[in-house]
């Protein structure tokens, strides 16, 4: 099998400041000929509480879940991950970061990063005489 291009390597180098404590969302990363897709589970995230940024080819996802109703009662069980979701990925330089598409549905964030023409696989035609 051909070695995949080294894409979306997790990084600690964040041009912005990572939060003091955070939760790492479970994320699938896959690649097709045309684009790279990241799918991250972020239950409780609302679009206005979510920030996706790309700086120095570092893609950063961070978000804070919206407040649940009636937090005033007595807590009997607490399994939700408290605090902020945060994750950073190093991207190769060849993504068109201007064209990243983001969708949020049922607490699942999908990011689609189109490859620039240079990164798309090319089929080299062999001419036969």
């Amino acid at each position, binding site marked *: 099998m051909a070695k995949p291009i080294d894409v979306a390597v997790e990084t600690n180098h964040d041009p912005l400041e990572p939060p003091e404590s955070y939760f*790492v969302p479970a994320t699938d990363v896959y690649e*097709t000929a045309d684009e790279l897709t990241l799918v991250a589970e972020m*239950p409780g995230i609302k679009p206005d509480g979510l920030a996706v940024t790309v700086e120095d080819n570092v893609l950063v996802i961070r978000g804070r879940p919206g407040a*649940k109703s009636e937090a005033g009662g007595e807590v009997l069980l607490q399994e939700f991950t408290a605090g902020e979701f945060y994750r950073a990925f190093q991207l190769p330089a060849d993504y068109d970061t201007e064209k990243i598409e983001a969708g949020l549905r049922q607490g699942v964030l999908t990011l689609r990063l189109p490859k620039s023409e240079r990164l798309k696989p090319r089929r080299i035609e062999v001419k036969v005489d």
Partner: protein
Amino acid sequence: MAIIPWRGRTLPVATLASLREEMNDLLARFWSHTSEPFGLAEWSPALDVSETDDTVLVHAEIPGIDPKELDIAVVGDTLTIRGEKKDETEREGRNFHRVERRYGAFTRSLRLPAPVDAEQVTAKAAGGVLEIRLPKKEGAKAKRIEIKSD
């Protein structure tokens, strides 16, 4: 490197406590990619449960699950949430670099802290979080007794 005389001091308790806290934090972060080691366990939703004077409130994390496919039942003093987190990811023609999301059928049952009025239970879902509101039965509601003073 300077030689530091050993004065036979024991480590302050506070240092040990903070060290322990750091270790716990480190371990928690290590496992946070998959809440079970090596992803062996099937997925089941995290629950938050709280109680006020007249209501039991249950929240469940259900990212990517269609709320219509959940089955919520109250029998006696037990609340049961059943469902399945289905993997609908297309695999064909895709080169996977990371697969961390987990799937599976689940059943979670909870013993409720007070009798609830099953007819009045409501549930709604938004943004991958399910909220179930269970009003307590009349007799089970906390009553505040006012103390009269002259």
